[in-house]
């Protein structure tokens, strides 16, 4: 029934102008009307060929063209998702609302709002008439349920609109009969279809009548970009009211009877193992404690409250086996990376060479909501609630761990309290399932302690990035980059996608996931005569993952610092240099906007300076101008109990994502990325000491706080340049980090070679001991006078 779908849109219709003024053919798409009690429609799309991925604005590229210029990670994920997207269904309810179970994870990035906007636009509805939920793990979707790579809008934009357009078309067809009118004469607004006679009928009244008894194909034309009414307009988040009233439900708020608080006593070093538990009976006798059991990652305890779990964890007497990295500290890993760097080609003697290596320290990808999951396991089944960005792989892995068939495991995707890469993995969900089983099949509400989330949770891998530029005859003739990183864990399913689709990527043959992902995401935004970027990854003993992107922020920062030096060597202004070498008009446009809005080159006192950087990824372009104040009076400003340091005083960012769906949501994502970029450049990292990360609190790991927020933040959303949305979630981090680094170099007169720049300064905090495993909560914070 679902085979033999045409891979391309049907006959092109009349030309339609787009935002960039280019004539684009109108396209018809095939979809399905699905047999269901009420009207249900699904997109039916086949494989889009790589050729279709070339976006306007990227033509006319100069001599250096990386694979990611034409075909990038987003294209690959789209291709992997396309064969199954016909199974994604929009349902019309008898109450007139439209429901869609989104097979992606909402973790704050705003995709539920943006998807609702696409449906509302195509069906002429208000945003509040669309209900978006998150789909459970659906193994039949194969590769179409991975939330990552800033790819959700890029991959869902067309399928969800095709389904919505088909539903509307079916409703109009039935309405024409009901109202004895021609479809073309019907007016359609906010779910009410009105005939010229004035008679009307609602979507809700037609929901059952329009339902089809057997599934069949149908074709439909999508709205042209010029006639969008919701897409492209600023909209507030559809869950905003729940968020500000405390009603929004996260994993630990899910109502599952009997699921008592559960925590894990973890080893003192990374991936240490349980050898013996010496006092399980004594701990079991503590107030509130109901269960104690060893699981592969530690000793799980279950109690009436999390407070009693913490006390039980600290009361446990556990004999620990060694971890996987007990001998290593930061300097050891850094030396290992340098030793394993891929070689550069010999430089011809005639060229002037700039050759720099930068080190990027481990960074925690922990969200504010720590790893958490609810699990209810029985001898024959398991039910999990957690924020899962790879729920299918999670379901399979948890089933394997429990000795159950995957079909016996249900994974409910709950909204996440942030992710930043963390929720690509299901560490808490697996532990919860194993603990539930180990406790004799009792439901558990498992949550990681904050200190564990930093110390044993996943981290962005440490990396070095060496950049060499060769200059001859007054121009840059070559840029080479050798990125060397602690291994990134791709076992969340992206690895399977990459290996399955590796042969389909034009121009690249990669043997490993790592190099595949690197080549699919990294590109040089400049038109140098030749460029060459390569990666090597080593050491698999750490628990790693992406942190709002895997490579880009580090690769971009290293490159942009060297680009500034190349400009200086040629006696050129950094902005003029970038503009001159920019690969295309879209790159130039974002640079021009930030330079103008940020007053590039304005006079500033000594110790205050600007930096500018640009990045190309996710079918988009992003430029950032940052201003930093490194004067002593600013560095040492007095904020109670704050770790201050240099302050970024102004950030101006311009982003071109092709077609912005929700400019307000996009601006929010850019602001968040700016805060991450500042943190990664200046303060935010983990210190590794003999197999233990020293940070154990938000007052140790210096993510941006209000005292480091720039007083001036301006986000410029560029008008549409293409007819499809690119990615946004991670986009701002790289160019912001790079611009801050360049500004810092200019303000201090020293080019930093390690990030964050404060990493080798004396620790700004007292290290929380690893024994007892968890710090006790304070007891004396009653406000004076309360």
């Amino acid at each position, binding site marked *: 029934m679902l085979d033999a779908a045409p891979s391309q849109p049907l006959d092109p219709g009349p030309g339609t102008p787009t935002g960039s003024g280019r004539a684009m053919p109108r396209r018809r798409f095939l979809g399905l009307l699905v047999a269901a009690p009420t009207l249900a429609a699904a997109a039916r799309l086949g494989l889009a060929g790589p050729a279709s991925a070339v976006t306007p604005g990227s033509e006319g590229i100069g001599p250096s063209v990386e694979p990611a210029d034409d075909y990038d990670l987003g294209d690959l994920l789209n291709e992997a998702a396309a064969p199954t997207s016909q199974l994604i269904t929009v349902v019309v309810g008898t109450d007139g609302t439209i429901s869609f179970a989104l097979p992606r994870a909402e973790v704050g990035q705003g995709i539920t709002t943006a998807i609702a906007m696409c449906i509302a636009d195509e069906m002429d509805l208000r945003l509040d008439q669309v209900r978006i939920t998150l789909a459970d793990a659906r193994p039949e979707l194969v590769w179409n349920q991975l939330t990552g790579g800033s790819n959700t809008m890029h991959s869902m934009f067309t399928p969800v609109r095709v389904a919505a357009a088909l539903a509307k078309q079916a409703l109009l067809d039935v309405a024409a009969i009901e109202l004895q009118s021609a479809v073309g004469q019907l007016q359609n607004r906010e779910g009410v279809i009105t005939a010229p006679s004035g008679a009307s009928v609602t979507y809700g009244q037609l929901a059952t009548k329009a339902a089809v008894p057997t599934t069949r194909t149908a074709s439909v034309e999508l709205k042209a970009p010029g006639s969008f009414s919701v897409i492209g307009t600023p909209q*507030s988040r559809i869950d905003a009211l729940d968020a500000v009233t405390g009603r929004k439900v996260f994993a630990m708020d899910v109502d599952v009877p009997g699921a008592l608080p559960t925590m894990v006593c973890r080893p003192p070093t990374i991936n240490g193992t349980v050898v013996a538990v010496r006092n399980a009976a004594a701990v079991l006798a503590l*107030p509130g404690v109901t269960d104690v059991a060893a699981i592969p990652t530690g000793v799980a305890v279950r109690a009436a409250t999390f*407070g009693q779990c*913490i006390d039980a964890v600290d009361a446990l007497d556990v004999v620990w086996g060694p971890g996987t990295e007990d001998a290593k500290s930061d300097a050891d890993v850094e030396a290992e990376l340098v030793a394993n760097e891929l070689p550069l080609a010999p430089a011809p003697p005639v060229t002037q060479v700039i050759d720099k290596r930068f080190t990027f320290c481990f960074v925690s990808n922990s969200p*504010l909501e720590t790893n958490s999951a609810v699990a209810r396991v029985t001898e024959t089944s398991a039910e999990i609630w957690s924020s899962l960005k790879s729920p299918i792989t999670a379901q399979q892995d948890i089933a394997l761990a429990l000795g159950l068939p995957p079909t016996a495991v249900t994974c409910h995707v709950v909204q996440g309290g*942030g992710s930043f890469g963390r929720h690509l993995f299901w560490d808490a969900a697996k532990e919860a399932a194993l603990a539930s089983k180990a406790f004799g099949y009792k439901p558990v509400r498992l949550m990681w302690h904050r200190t564990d989330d930093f110390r044993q949770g996943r981290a962005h891998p440490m990396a070095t990035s060496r950049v060499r530029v060769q200059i001859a005859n007054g121009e840059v003739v070559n840029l080479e980059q050798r990125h060397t990183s602690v291994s990134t864990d791709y076992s969340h399913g992206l690895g399977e996608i990459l290996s399955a689709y590796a042969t389909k990527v034009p121009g690249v043959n990669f043997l490993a996931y790592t190099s595949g992902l690197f080549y699919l995401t990294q590109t040089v935004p400049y038109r140098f005569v030749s460029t060459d970027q390569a990666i090597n990854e080593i050491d698999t003993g750490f628990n790693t993952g992406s942190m709002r992107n895997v490579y880009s922020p580090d690769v971009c920062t290293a490159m942009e610092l060297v680009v500034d030096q190349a400009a200086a060597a040629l006696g050129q202004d950094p902005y003029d240099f970038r503009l001159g070498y920019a690969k295309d008009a879209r790159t130039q446009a974002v640079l021009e906007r930030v330079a103008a809005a940020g007053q590039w080159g304005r006079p500033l006192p000594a110790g205050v300076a600007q930096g500018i950087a640009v990045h190309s990824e996710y079918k988009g372009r992003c430029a950032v101008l940052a201003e930093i104040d490194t004067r002593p009076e600013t560095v040492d400003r007095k904020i109670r109990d704050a770790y201050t340091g240099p302050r970024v005083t102004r950030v101006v960012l311009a982003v071109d994502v092709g077609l912005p769906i929700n400019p307000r949501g996009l601006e929010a994502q850019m*602001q968040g990325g700016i805060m991450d970029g500042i943190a990664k450049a200046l303060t935010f990292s983990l210190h590794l000491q003999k197999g233990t990360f020293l940070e154990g609190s938000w007052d140790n790991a210096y*993510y941006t706080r209000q005292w480091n927020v720039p007083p001036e933040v301006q986000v410029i959303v560029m008008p549409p340049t293409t007819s499809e949305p690119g990615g946004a979630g991670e986009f701002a981090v790289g160019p912001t980090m790079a611009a801050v680094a360049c500004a810092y170099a200019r303000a201090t007169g020293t080019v930093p070679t390690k990030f964050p720049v404060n990493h080798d300064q004396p620790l700004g905090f007292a290290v929380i001991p690893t024994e007892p495993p968890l710090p006790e909560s304070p007891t004396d914070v009653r406000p004076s006078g309360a």
Partner: protein
Amino acid sequence: MPVHTFTVNGEEVEVDCDDKVRLLWVLRDLLGIHGPKYGCGLDVCKACTSLLNGQKFNPCSIEVADIEPTDEVVTIEGLPATVGAALHPMQQAWLDHDVAQCGYCQPGQIMNAVALVHQVHAEGRSITEHDLDGIRNICRCGTYTRIREAILAGEAAMYPTVATGS
């Protein structure tokens, strides 16, 4: 186990619980009040910020035994009732500025903002940039810029007759 009595969001509650359990777990695990979030349990991230007799405090860092029968605890769930409207002006300001992203920290941010505005005005002044710089609540999504804007808007709504000069 000892019985503890106090008022939460206008309702008198009675919980049977070990003395040293921190109030956050009494609220979340025993009373099912989920607005205050766990982000650290160390009085650092401020995600659980609520009000104790009108002043901001962090329930993760106070033992339930230290809560007196006369104490009134207000969490985000109880905030609207304090002004008799559907939403507190600070919540409305949060909506107007579309502050939230994942939303996990926002109940604590809003409770902190309400307390901060009241505290500053009790000192006979308005919110300054320095006040905003001093806010400790973590937002890992990085909504800080909108939080600052919303606090100033919320302040203007809470104290409409006072000129805000920051």
